[in-house]
């Protein structure tokens, strides 16, 4: 999970990394109450980088300019992301800009300290001068000094920068970070340091250990209401938030992967990400296009929830218009496989697809695509044209279950629109053939 700059700077402040006086702004008119003396810099709080070049960082000299600039920034999407917050910060005159970062190296399985004498927005120059020190065994301050020395620093500045690295490392460990970055670390004419920007990525796996981060989206709104400048005591991260316990019996919902192909006709529903990759591979290797992939985690014992989620998913697929076939491939115990098979079959038996087991009222609320509407109207008339028959709008199912007694499934759960098989290659062929039918 990425923190925004102002959240990262809050952590910096707590640990003693120097940051500038700043205020968070949720609406331009709040700038009227700004307690930071001008000139001030307004920074868009977005998770993506490259704000400066995109115009998300503006220097302003007075309130009127500030409000105008804030309006512009709030309406500026950077790589598709709009800011909800702007950070107003005091201006700083840096003589030089350094770069510091600590990153978890997954190859070495160790944290690595990074530094560059060329901090700032010129990434090429930054990378060309990048130095690293691997924290192999235990961390000790001399490792930070080693990095500083590799960067070409010496004397007082070396000591000061090492101190910052030590504090960054402390945050890295205590908060289970994946990445912490200060770019630029400003150095003024007197050799004082200031973290002018900050990025922190918390490891998603560690969120259960850190209750202060688990409700971050609501937290953001709350803390903006309690807004103060850095001078008064900053509200610490809430420790009264109830800790979210990992409990395997909490049902997990259907998860759509962000793989989408609008021209794709085959949707994939599986219970594991790797199986989704496999099915996607096989379809594409035959030069066909899968439409999307949906994962159902943790199925055991959640039958009623599965029914509801399955129906919602089918509706979403129907509204995608292009999807003609849903391919299922589940690896569960025999008992669970059977339960899933039965549930799906019962759903199909009890409600022919054009009504989708919704009441008339529900149908009015959910937007129905044109072709579906046309088919419903035309079914009451006598039509010889096959193209507008009801069944052409329904999504066919190809269900692959690794059962040796698959014929039993075919008999017991027999339905026009469901095809049962225990062979994946056959399932793929069947799905492709069905997707090509009118």
């Amino acid at each position, binding site marked *: 999970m990425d923190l925004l700059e102002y959240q990262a700077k809050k952590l910096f402040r707590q640990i003693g990394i120097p940051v500038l006086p700043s205020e968070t702004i949720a609406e331009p008119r709040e700038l009227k109450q700004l307690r930071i003396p001008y000139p001030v810099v307004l920074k868009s709080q977005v998770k993506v980088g490259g704000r400066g070049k995109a115009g998300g960082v503006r220097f302003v000299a007075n309130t009127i300019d500030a409000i105008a600039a804030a309006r512009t920034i709030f309406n500026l999407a950077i790589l598709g992301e709009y800011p909800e917050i702007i950070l107003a910060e005091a201006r700083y005159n840096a003589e030089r800009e350094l770069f510091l970062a600590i990153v978890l190296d997954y190859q070495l*399985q160790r944290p690595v300290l990074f530094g560059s004498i060329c901090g700032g927005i010129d990434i090429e120059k930054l990378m060309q001068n990048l130095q690293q020190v691997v924290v192999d065994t235990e961390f000790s301050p001399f490792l930070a000094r080693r990095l500083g020395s590799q960067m070409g620093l010496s004397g007082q500045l070396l000591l000061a920068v090492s101190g910052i690295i030590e504090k960054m490392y402390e945050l890295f460990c205590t908060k289970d970070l994946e990445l912490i970055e200060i770019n630029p670390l400003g150095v003024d004419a007197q050799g004082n340091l200031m973290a002018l920007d900050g990025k922190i990525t918390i490891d998603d796996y560690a969120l259960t250990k850190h209750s202060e981060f688990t409700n971050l989206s609501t937290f953001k709104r709350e803390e903006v209401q309690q807004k103060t400048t850095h001078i008064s005591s900053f509200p610490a991260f809430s420790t009264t938030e109830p800790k979210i316990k990992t409990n395997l019996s909490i049902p997990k919902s259907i998860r759509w992967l962000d793989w989408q192909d609008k021209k794709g006709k085959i949707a994939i529903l599986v219970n594991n990400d790797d*199986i989704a990759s496999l099915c996607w*591979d096989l379809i594409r290797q035959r030069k066909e296009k899968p439409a999307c992939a949906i994962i159902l985690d943790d199925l055991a014992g959640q039958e009623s929830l599965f029914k509801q989620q399955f129906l919602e998913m089918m509706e979403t697929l129907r509204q995608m218009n292009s999807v003609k076939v849903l391919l299922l491939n589940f690896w569960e115990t025999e008992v669970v496989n059977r339960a899933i098979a039965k549930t799906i079959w019962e759903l199909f038996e009890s409600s022919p697809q054009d009504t989708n087991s919704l009441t008339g009222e529900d149908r009015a609320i959910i937007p129905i695509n044109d072709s579906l509407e046309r088919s419903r109207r035309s079914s009451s008339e006598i039509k010889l044209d096959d193209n507008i028959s009801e069944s052409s709008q329904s999504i066919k199912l190809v269900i692959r279950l690794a059962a040796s007694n698959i014929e039993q499934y075919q008999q017991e759960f027999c339905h026009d629109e469901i095809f049962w098989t225990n062979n994946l290659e056959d399932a793929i062929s069947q799905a492709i053939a069905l997707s090509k039918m009118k």
Partner: protein
Amino acid sequence: MNWKLNNQIIVQGTENSHQMLQCINQMKSYGVEVLAAISSGHPLIALEEIPIFDLVEEAIQKIGTVETSIIFASSEHVLDVCLEAIAAGIKQLIIITAKIPPLDTIKLSKIAKLNHIFILGPGSAGIIIPQKLCLGTLQPEYFSLGNVGIISYGQSLIYEVAWILNQAQIGQSLAISLGQDKIIDSSLLHWLEILNEDQATEVIIVIQTAQDIDYSSLELMSQSISKPVICYIFGSQTPKGKVFRQGVEILNNHLSHSLPDIYSFRKTISNVKKLGVTLTQNPSEIPQLIRKLL
């Protein structure tokens, strides 16, 4: 020093009783004896005939030496319960729980190395030797006895590959799930060596994702492993982005300020081919590849 696998184990992490019970019942049918369950103070649940203890050392005192513990504890407790097991003399840990904080896994790895402890996982589904041994959550009904070893990180594709082999009347000698976390203690090379020495195994299948191929292990493998290896690489047709492991790569990607490109895996795959490794991207090709190699 090698894994000593037998049918007598303990389990830890009773707070995830549902998953634990399911696994115990499955393993029971394979003759696995769960000699104790460690609750670590969590509310006790009735586990039929299995005695429950608060501490591993209490259990060991009562039941005697046990080599292996299977860990079901919640992710934030895994480091602690593993350290407890190691301190009580357990030599082998199979960590079923996934999504352990990486810094915890690193700590655990360091201590395991110092104490010569073998770990599978985190996020492992365990190991199965058809008709002999089943430790973990791999479902025995999908396997048959034979001469092909399967090494994978996750468990699902083990099932798919085993299915294809079974259809072709080819059985499995051993199947192992190394673990799905980004940092795992299990070593691919170590298990390749085990299968290389295993009498029953004649061919080894390694399953990897295109976005995260352990190229260096494959390089070392081509020098030290004598038995034929088939590398099944999946996911090259998916829009998944490359997994960056090296610090510099991660930093570069982080700083590059643009939307991630879909990484082309053709280069990596051709590099793997250059190592002389038999490669496939479609598991249904595996049986014919095996026939060619043997």
